[in-house]
């Protein structure tokens, strides 16, 4: 078993990359990440009531000249379709999204995630959103790639997070 990415290293990496705001709705795959976010002094965290609201918050933050990131469960991908297509993609607003990849083998007992788990990558492809799967090894280089594609294209990109990678 690989060792998970320490949440404080993960957040300070993002802070070093210029991210100063996070918003989204929790998933247990991000439990430790959210604990660290709530305590973080470098990254301000706003618990959002819905994932599309978090897209709005991060996009507004960008329009004011600062950068934030989004954190959500893949179920929330189904909530943000219009926010992506008619806001972030339409206005070309860079957006880094961390999306938990529920519905794979470890979620066999969670039928509520199975359909979305099956279609998650298809949904991202259909929305023309470049995505990466986060790994404990090389995690910084994966994030560097995602961030550089986001900046070069000025568009949303997604990092999928499987069980155990960011939280026990």
């Amino acid at each position, binding site marked *: 078993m690989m060792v998970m990415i320490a949440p404080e290293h993960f957040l300070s990496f993002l802070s070093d990359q210029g991210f100063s*705001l996070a918003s989204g709705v929790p998933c247990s795959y991000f439990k430790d990440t959210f604990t660290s976010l709530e305590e973080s002094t470098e990254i301000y965290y706003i618990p959002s009531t819905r994932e599309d*609201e978090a897209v709005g*918050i991060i996009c507004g933050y960008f329009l004011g*000249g*600062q950068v934030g990131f989004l954190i959500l469960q893949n179920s929330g991908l189904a909530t943000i379709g219009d926010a992506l297509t008619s*806001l972030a993609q*339409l*206005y070309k*607003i860079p957006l880094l999204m961390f999306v938990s990849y529920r519905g794979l083998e470890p979620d066999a007992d969670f039928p509520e995630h199975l359909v979305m788990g099956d279609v998650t990558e298809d949904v991202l492809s259909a929305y023309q959103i470049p995505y990466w799967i986060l790994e404990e090894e090389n995690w910084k280089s994966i994030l560097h790639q995602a961030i550089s594609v986001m900046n070069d294209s000025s568009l949303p990109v997604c990092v999928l997070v499987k069980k155990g990678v960011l939280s026990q």
Partner: protein
Amino acid sequence: MKGAEVIQKLDEYLTGKELIVSSNGNVSRQVYTLLPQPQVYLRGSMGLPVSIGLGLALSQPKKKVIVITGDGNFLMGLSSIATVGSVQPPNLRILVIDNETYATTGCQETVSSALNYVEMVKGMGIKSVVSIDLTKEKEIPSDLFDKFVIKEELQVLHIRVEIDDINLENIPWHPIEIKENFLNR
């Protein structure tokens, strides 16, 4: 009084430095036509003007951010009022132009007429909220916008208006241009 007249009147109280986010449809077209440019004119993302205004207010704490939204947009993103009530950004204010309809798509009814905006918004943690019915008025009380624009306090101003009968042209800027013009202001 109609929504466009309210927006036109607001112009007299603006310094030009305020950052404005307007909801999709008629409201954005009116804001584009009647208020100083450039602003964040939303073309889509119905329901999100308040959340975008919140992000903008946090990003630019020294500037006043005014969200101008139709009731349909406001109600679709109503839970963002709870988030705003929790964050309490003092530089954010929200103007609800309530014509009780989705006017842009042909004046279908919203659920707005059943609601008490003062109780609803106060219950979500925003202390300064004014609700006023101008459907039968020709003038706006002079102190209404004074306080709304000048006071350094999170505020919601809900105005009931008559439905607009004018239909403005589409905003000629592509959304990418809207963003770039706004970022360069």
